[in-house]
């Protein structure tokens, strides 16, 4: 009885050693890889000045030479970039913005290659040059501006309220004592609404679908989270509408490799053109179900 126990203890210790060494190893790996990568760039820069300029200033030239635009987009985000499991197509507001960019640069909106990115992978992929730009529900922040350049705001994201059509709640100010506001457990939205509407009762659910079901069942007067999610719900059931605008500021921008002012300008020009021509409003309405504010 004792012997097998001792054996198993030894085995567990051995397994733990392996796990720890493995963790240590993987921790070192990325540093080594980045180190290697940076030496590589300097090496090529030294070797060939022409190559250096094209890497630094010429995303636009690179796209034209390649004949297609490579855009990093989300594959799992409703309304913005979602892969349709049956057709395999990726569709959404972000996707259409990327297509419009391809049309402006290359004259053909089909000349765009979509690459799936997540919030974690998108900046490294951009910096490595695997993608030309990021159109992936990316909030412009000061911290991120250290690493990438941003276009002008193309979507004003932020926390908002969803209520039943005709509700007497029309904004934050109506969230008085006794009003039940629904949200999701542990979300930033829950924290924000407690600060902004301290008198209201905040009820937190397991997930957004549960919270929306509860709102429909009349278990609360308003549902609060990011407007991008609420817009999806409003699209799903038009009896529920967003009110009061956004009360947190998380503007989405298109991210571009740092230092490529020419490309940033191209993207900004396009956004302006789209807004002026009404194409932006059309796209917005197509995906969000409502006109932009």
């Amino acid at each position, binding site marked *: 009885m004792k012997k097998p126990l001792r054996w198993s203890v030894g085995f567990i210790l051995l397994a733990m050693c392996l796990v720890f060494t493995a963790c240590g190893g993987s921790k070192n790996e990325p540093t080594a890889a980045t180190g290697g990568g940076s030496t590589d760039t300097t090496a090529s820069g030294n070797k060939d000045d022409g190559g250096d300029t094209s890497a630094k200033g010429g995303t636009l030239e690179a796209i034209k030479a390649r004949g297609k635009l490579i855009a990093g987009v989300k594959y799992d985000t409703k309304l913005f970039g979602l892969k349709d499991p049956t057709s395999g197509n990726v569709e959404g507001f972000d996707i259409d913005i990327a297509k419009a960019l391809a049309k402006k640069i290359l004259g053909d909106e089909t000349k765009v290659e979509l690459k799936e990115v997540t919030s974690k992978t998108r900046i490294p992929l951009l910096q490595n040059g695997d993608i030309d730009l990021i159109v992936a529900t990316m909030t412009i922040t000061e911290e991120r501006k250290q690493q990438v350049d941003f276009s002008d705001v193309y979507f004003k994201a932020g926390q908002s309220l969803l209520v039943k059509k005709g509700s007497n709640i029309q904004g934050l100010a109506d969230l008085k004592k006794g009003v039940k506001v629904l949200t999701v457990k542990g979300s930033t939205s829950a924290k924000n609404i407690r600060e902004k509407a301290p008198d209201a009762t905040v009820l937190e*659910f397991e997930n957004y679908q549960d919270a929306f*079901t*509860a709102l429909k069942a009349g278990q609360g007067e308003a549902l609060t989270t990011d407007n991008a999610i609420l817009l999806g719900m409003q699209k799903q059931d038009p009896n529920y509408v967003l009110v009061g605008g956004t009360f947190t500021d998380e503007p989405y921008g298109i991210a571009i490799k740092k230092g490529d002012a020419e490309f940033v300008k191209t993207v900004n020009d396009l956004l302006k053109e789209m807004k002026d021509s009404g194409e932006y409003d059309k796209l917005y309405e197509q995906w969000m179900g409502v006109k932009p504010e």
Partner: protein
Amino acid sequence: MPGKFDIHVLFNHWDRFAEGFIHTIEASVLALIGSFVLGVIIAVMRISPVRALNVIGTVYVEFIRNIPLLLVVFFFFLGLPSLGLPLDGFTSGTLGLTVYTASFIAEAIRAGIQSVPTGQTEAARATGLSYIQTMLHIVLPQAIKIVLPAIGNQFINLVKNSSILAVVTGLDLMYYADLINSDTFLPLTVYTIVAVFYLVLTLPLSFAVHYMERRFRSADR
């Protein structure tokens, strides 16, 4: 970090733990009383000689006992409002618990009563006692020693099942545990503390059940 046990969580979030604990106790006590009363009624219907009552009792037990508790609670929380009767999370959770546990209690009582040999009833009726008198003086006193531990077990289950309130924003211990966890990111600590809170309620019940079992067994000898 997530593996670290940090007892300060208990003190820093004491007010929320306490509020949750109180709501868990309230829901448990209310459902305990409610389910016992309802369970007795259903059990009486189940064994009653009146056929219609019998059918109602059987349908209740077999229907409620064989669906998930979550479904019963969702019926009160999400279903009733569409019929024009909105109940808050705490109320619908407690009602769901009551209705659900009552079906098990009814079965425990029925099994206990039917374990008393029919000869007892027949003899009592032959001496001129009425049906009610037979029940009260002959059958129930004998059934109770089988019934009580079984009901005790159901009460233990009830206290544990009260965590269902967390899903319908019932403001119970488990609901606040989830919130505290998402504030602290110390799941091991938070849920261990919560386990202790539940044990404070269930262990005494468990000991009571053991005590009853031992006492009734020795009384038989």
